């Protein structure tokens, strides 16, 4: 493999890995904040137990999201120095804002929340977790604005003397229409995962540990399932708008999503295809007439550009070259994203039905499929991002810079092999450890939250800490 391919694999692996933890962090912190709010407002101890129980799972996951994120901040400079030089003037701004505005907020107030249980007044302690929750969404917004600029560059000009992109309008970058629709789509994806986890863990306890903390787990199961369902609704709505914007700004990606080689009007959407995807006709496929036209243009007989026409058009515009992404990959990741998300929503619906009016789920199949509930949306999140990122190839900045010209010219294949091996191995080991810890703490029942019995010898000064590492 050459340096470009290695650097691409490395960025892909580290980013997908980072985004295994991010969705759960973003979604779960809001649910934990909601549980704690319910406790502060009602005084019902079941909410406090749920806060502490899911708070622990949140922290185990947060640690991994944090450390894998550090790598991303420096990988641009390490492996993609030519890209960093070309876009730094524009791309660096949202990245620095993310750190200054969001990362400080999240990390500082999370420390206050973890260790502040008995040190801070109740309401200020509650405010800390809400600030963390807002911080996670802020950081998602800034980093997605940076990514969206690569998909649909706006608010810049190319300096003829240096050949670099220069920022001309920060408002345009921060209100990029691709960013404005990608943010809600991504956040909804985060809630899909977190809702799935909360529901799955709660139902598991309801069925397997019947009799202990039933009321708390029943509430958590319903809240989790509803979160998943509402998030799936939001996914469909935002995904639809996103598809139309994508057809407008990156038509090649839309054509690749359907493996549509020839332009069609109206264009069908194939749910499943068996056949050659190299341009010859499919052998067998299930098609919904006009759906692709609707997804792309909002009308059932709109014209959707095909890959071959776009390839021809881009050759005229940007010179000779290959402008198609990897078609089988874009085709299947697009379908997996939608299908897996929908499957998770169906499971959530099943849970709501099985727990209606005080019932406890009895179906063995439902219990067996519980582990899938958080995993399906997690994989859907990954395939969605793989589609977004791979569908933009061969560009790193659409229309302006190709991936092949973006790497660090002075970083050798040996260095790249080393770092790729180190990150992959380390991340693999840490993932196993994290999953084991999550399972251990998800299986344990709700924590005891009754106030500790005061020992006589202890003065107030010497009382043990409410939380210690």
């Amino acid at each position, binding site marked *: 493999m050459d340096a470009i391919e290695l650097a691409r694999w490395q960025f892909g692996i580290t980013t997908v890995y980072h985004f295994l933890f991010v969705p759960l962090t973003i979604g779960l912190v809001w649910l934990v904040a909601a549980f704690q709010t319910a406790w502060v407002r009602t005084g019902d101890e079941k909410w406090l137990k749920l806060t502490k129980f899911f708070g622990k799972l949140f922290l185990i996951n947060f*640690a991994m999201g944090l450390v894998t994120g550090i790598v991303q901040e420096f990988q641009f400079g390490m492996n993609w120095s030519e890209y960093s030089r070309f876009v730094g003037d524009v791309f*660096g701004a949202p990245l620095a804002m993310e750190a200054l505005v969001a990362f400080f907020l999240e990390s500082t107030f999370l420390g206050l929340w973890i260790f502040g249980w008995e040190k801070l007044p109740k309401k200020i302690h509650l405010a800390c977790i809400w600030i963390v929750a807002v911080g996670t969404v802020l950081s998602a917004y800034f980093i997605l604005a940076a990514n969206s600029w690569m998909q649909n560059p706006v608010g810049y000009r190319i300096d003829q003397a240096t050949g670099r992109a220069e920022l001309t309008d920060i408002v345009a970058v921060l209100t990029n229409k691709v960013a404005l629709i990608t943010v809600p789509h991504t956040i909804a994806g985060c809630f899909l995962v977190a809702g799935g986890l909360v529901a799955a863990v709660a139902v598991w306890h309801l069925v397997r540990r019947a009799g202990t903390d039933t009321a708390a787990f029943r509430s958590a199961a319903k809240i989790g399932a509803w979160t998943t369902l509402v998030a799936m609704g939001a996914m469909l709505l935002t995904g639809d708008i996103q598809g139309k914007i994508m057809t407008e700004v990156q038509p090649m990606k839309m054509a690749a999503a359907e493996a549509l080689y020839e332009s069609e009007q109206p264009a069908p959407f194939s749910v499943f295809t068996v056949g050659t995807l190299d341009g010859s006709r499919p052998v067998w496929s299930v098609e919904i007439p006009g759906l692709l036209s609707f997804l792309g243009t909002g009308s059932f007989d709109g014209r959707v550009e095909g890959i071959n026409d776009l390839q021809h058009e881009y050759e005229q515009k940007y010179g000779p070259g290959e402008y198609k992404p990897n078609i089988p990959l874009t085709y299947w990741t697009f379908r997996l994203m939608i299908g897996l998300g929908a499957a998770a929503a169906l499971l959530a619906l099943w849970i709501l039905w099985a727990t209606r009016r005080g019932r406890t789920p009895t179906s063995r199949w439902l219990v067996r499929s519980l582990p899938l509930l958080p995993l399906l949306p997690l994989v859907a999140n990954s395939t969605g991002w793989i589609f977004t990122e791979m569908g933009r190839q061969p560009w790193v900045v659409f229309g302006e810079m190709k991936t092949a010209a973006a790497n660090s010219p*002075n970083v050798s294949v040996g260095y790249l092999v080393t770092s790729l091996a180190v990150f992959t191995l380390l991340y693999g080991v840490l993932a196993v450890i994290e999953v084991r810890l999550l399972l251990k703490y998800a299986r344990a029942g709700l924590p005891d939250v009754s106030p500790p019995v005061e020992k006589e010898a202890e003065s107030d000064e010497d009382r043990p800490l409410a939380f210690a590492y």
Partner: protein
Amino acid sequence: MELSTVWFLLIALLFVGYFVLEGFDFGVGMLLPVLGRDERERRVMINTIGPVWDGNEVWLITAGGAMFAAFPEWYASVFSGFYLPLLLILLALILRGVAFEYRGKRNDPVWRRRWDRCIVFGSFVPAVLWGVAFANIVRGVPLDADHDYIGGFFTLLNPYALLGGLTTLALFLTHGAVFIALKTVGDIRQRANRLAERLGIAAVLAAALFLGLTLARRATTPALILAVLAALCLVGGLIANRLPSRDDPQGRREGWAFAGTAAAIALAVASLFADLYPFVLPSTVDPVTNSLTVANASSTPYTLKIMTWVAVIFTPLVLLYQGWTYWVFRKRIGTQHIPEELVTPQPATR
């Protein structure tokens, strides 16, 4: 003042913040097996930085982001050039962060010992390599006409840079020992104080030699003044460390000692940046045409203006709420504060 110079100062400030705050985090991590005699004491040490280490680390992320935004050329050249040291630092920071969060998640001595090793490794490696990296930045590295680094890995390990690494190591160890003495009560506080005395002598010697060599190569007046002030603060801090505390005859003047080591680190880092200016990464191949300077590495005035507004609004806010965090967790802790159930040995469970 040119905005690019303002941003040079801001990035210097971010690194000063990072080294002052993570300096004692690294120190605590490295001293874990030295000062922590049993599980209870190791817990006390880790909990002195428990609520704050994560926020301290963000200073580095922000410094990196600020370099990317304000000086993309600098960011690209440094991070692609210092590839292997940076990879090691990232590895260390990953292991250390996970270790803090995971080591107490199972009550199993073997599990904890493994994570303790990660904390020591994760604190030691950056404590040395940041010194090596900054020494190389000040000294200059082989850059070609495209500002790409063309040296090898061992080019970075020259004697001067290794002395830089030794200096940060000694400074952070001293800073960490003084911090532990400031934040704990009882036996561990006494031992931390005694250790700080010995480490302090090594830190003074290393820092004096390193800053002396730096200034002998190329001295600017501000760098000279800052270096002398750094030395004075360090010595002052170490003297305060020997004076008995006014209200506790068992203790020393740890507050003053900590202020001294913190100021010494801040001034020493500032001195390096003052010595570097107006360069950001000098080239040893052709210093005139190949070097990166504040002028040729910076972003456009528009980007710098936007970023200046963001920094002017948010930096004071960050200082304010991080300061508040330190105030909330200002109390000293001792072995009696560690909850019993966390340290009672239990058979290893899966």
